[in-house]
C-alpha cells in the first residue's frame, strides 16, 4: 500500500480516549478473537505475536450467566463475508472475572471487556463489579456495551434500536467506570443510527463503536431452507464495509462523538477509509478469525 499524503497518525502510539490513555488505535472486534488468550501460542516469521501493535482486544461478549450458544451450524461463509449465529456463547461473568481477566493482565494483553445484558440495570451491576475486580489492573482499559446482537431472542434486535434504552444502558454503567473508557456498540439495523449515537453520547459514553453485524439470511438451495437453524444471523466481513462507512459517516457528521469504526476491515487500506471519515480507532473482526495476525499486520503496515 502507498501511504496517502493525508495520513499522519501513528496507530500504535498511545492516545487519550475519555478518561484513559489507550495503547493504540487498532483493536480486535468482539467475538472474533475470543477472550484474547489464543494468540500467545501462534507465531509468524514477520511478527512474534498477534498482539504486536494492537491497542486493545475487545473480548467476546460476556453475559451475567454462562450461555451455551446456538446449535450448529453457526457460520455461513459467503463470497465476501459471513453470517453468524453463535448466540453469545460465553463462560458467564463470574467465570470471566475469575479465570480470564487475571490471565489477560498476567499476559499483558490490553483489553476492553464487552458486556451484554437483557435489562439496562444489569449493565450497571456488571460494570460496578468489574471495576471492583479490575480497578488495579493496568491492561484493562474499559467496557464496550454490546447493545446490538441480533442473534439473541431476549434483548438483541429491538433492544439496541431504541435511543432511550441505549441511553439507559450507558447511564447505568457510566458512574462505575470513573477512569475507564465506556464504549457503546451500536446496531446498524436501523433507519438512522445518529439518534442512537446521540443518546449514547448524551448519557456519557466516551465513544461509540459502529457497526455490529447486519441482519442477514442465507438459503441452502438443496433443501430450500435457511442455512442457520434460527433463520437469521449477523452479516459481517468485507461485504458490509460500505454500510459501516455510511453509518460511521452519519454519526461523525451529525453527532460528533468519537467513533470506533468496525465492519469489513481486512487490510490497512480498509482501516484508512474509517480514519479518513474521522474514526479515533478501528476494530478488525471477521478478518481476525481468518488471520490471527490480521490486526497486527494492519497496524504494522499503517505504521510504515
Amino acid at each position, binding site marked *: 500500500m502507498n501511504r496517502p499524503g493525508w495520513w499522519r497518525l501513528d496507530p500504535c502510539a498511545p492516545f487519550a480516549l475519555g478518561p484513559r490513555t489507550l495503547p493504540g488505535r487498532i483493536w480486535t472486534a468482539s467475538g472474533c478473537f475470543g477472550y484474547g488468550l489464543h494468540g500467545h501460542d501462534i507465531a509468524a516469521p514477520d511478527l512474534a505475536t498477534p498482539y504486536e501493535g494492537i491497542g486493545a482486544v475487545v473480548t467476546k461478549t460476556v453475559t451475567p450467566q454462562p450461555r451455551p450458544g446456538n446449535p450448529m451450524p453457526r457460520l455461513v461463509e459467503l463470497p465476501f463475508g459471513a453470517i453468524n449465529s453463535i448466540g453469545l456463547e460465553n463462560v458467564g461473568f463470574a467465570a470471566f472475572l475469575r479465570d480470564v481477566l487475571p490471565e489477560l493482565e498476567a499476559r499483558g494483553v490490553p483489553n476492553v471487556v464487552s458486556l451484554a445484558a437483557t435489562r439496562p440495570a444489569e449493565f450497571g451491576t456488571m460494570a460496578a463489579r468489574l471495576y471492583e475486580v479490575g480497578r488495579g489492573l493496568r491492561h484493562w482499559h474499559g467496557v464496550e456495551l454490546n447493545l446490538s446482537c441480533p442473534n439473541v431472542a431476549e434483548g438483541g434486535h429491538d433492544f439496541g434500536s431504541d435511543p432511550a434504552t441505549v441511553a439507559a444502558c450507558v447511564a447505568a454503567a457510566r458512574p462505575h467506570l470513573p477512569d475507564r473508557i465506556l464504549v457503546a456498540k451500536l446496531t446498524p439495523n436501523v433507519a438512522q443510527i445518529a439518534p442512537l449515537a446521540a443518546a449514547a453520547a448524551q448519557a456519557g459514553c466516551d465513544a461509540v463503536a459502529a457497526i455490529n453485524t447486519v441482519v442477514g439470511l442465507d438459503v441452502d438451495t438443496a433443501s430450500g431452507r435457511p442455512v442457520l437453524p434460527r433463520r437469521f444471523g449477523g452479516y459481517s*466481513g468485507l461485504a458490509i464495509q460500505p454500510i459501516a462507512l455510511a453509518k460511521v459517516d452519519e454519526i461523525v457528521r451529525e453527532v460528533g462523538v468519537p467513533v470506533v469504526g468496525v465492519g469489513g476491515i481486512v487490510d490497512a487500506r480498509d482501516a484508512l477509509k474509517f480514519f479518513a471519515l474521522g474514526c479515533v480507532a478501528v476494530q478488525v473482526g471477521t478478518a481476525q478469525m481468518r488471520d490471527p495476525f490480521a490486526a497486527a499486520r494492519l497496524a504494522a503496515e499503517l505504521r510504515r
Partner: protein
Amino acid sequence: MGPLGAAPRPPAATWDLAGRVVANGPVSQGLRVLDVELPRAIDFLPGQFAMLNLTGPARLVFRRPFSILATAGRTISFLYRAIGRGTSLMAGLAPGAAVECLAPLGQPFPAPAAATPPVLILAGGVGLPPLYAWFARYRRPADLACFGGRDLDDVPWDLVPPPWQVSVDRLDGAAARSVFHGLVTELALACVGEPGDATPRLVLACGPTPLLRAAARLARERGWPCRVSLEEHMGCGYGVCKGCVVPVRDPGPPGWRHATSCTEGPVFDAALIDWDRFGHAAAGGPA
C-alpha cells in the same frame, strides 16, 4: 479451563506461514494430495490439522481445515477431495501457487503407551490422513488398520498398502485386488472377530459421521475406549469464534456443554460426545 479455549496445548507451537505448492495431483480417482513447501519445518502430532487458504482473488473468507497427512523437511502434505468451493479451487492450484497455512492445530490422537491395548483404526475416505500419520509413526505389530473407500478407483492404494485392510462400498466388475466389499466397520468386525474375542482394543476413527457413530457404537458395545476425529465446520480453527462446537457430556447441571472442536478436538473421546445432540438439523423441503 477448557471452555475458555486454553485447552492443553500440544508440544509444537502454531505457525502462520506463507507456503508454495510443490505438487498437487490425484492419488485415486477422487482423492488428491497437495504438497506445500513452508518457509520452515513444523512439528505435528497425528490428528492435528492445518487451516489452509488460497491467495489473490480466490482467497476464502475462512480458511479450510485439513488434517496433516505427513511432513518431510519443510514440506507438508494433505489428502483431500474436491467437494465444494474451496477444495475445487485447491484442486486447480499449480506448483508455485501461494497457500496460507496455519499449523499445527488441535488435539492429536493419543500416542501409544506401554499399557495401550492394540489399536483398531477405522478410516473412511478423506478421514485417512490423521490415521495414516498415526499408523506410520506409532504402528505396533498387533495394531490393525482398516480403510474404507467408495469403490476400487477411489482407494489411494499407495497410502494404504498392506498391512492396511481395505473395504469398498461398491464393488463393480471384477475385483483385481483382494478387498472387502462392505462398510469399513464391517471389515473391522471381520478383523477383530466376534464379541466373545477377548483382546481389548483402542478404536481410533476418522471419516464421515455415520462411520464415527458406528465406530463409537462398536467400541461401546465391546467396552473398548474410542477416539474419534470430528470434521466439524470451522471458522477460525484456533479457538476464537465458537463456530465449531460439538455437544459433549458434562458433569454440570444441564448434563452437556458445547466443546470447541478446533482446540478441545478435533479428536475426542467418543464416550464424551453427546451423539443424540450431535449433527445438524436434517434437510427437508423449502421453508
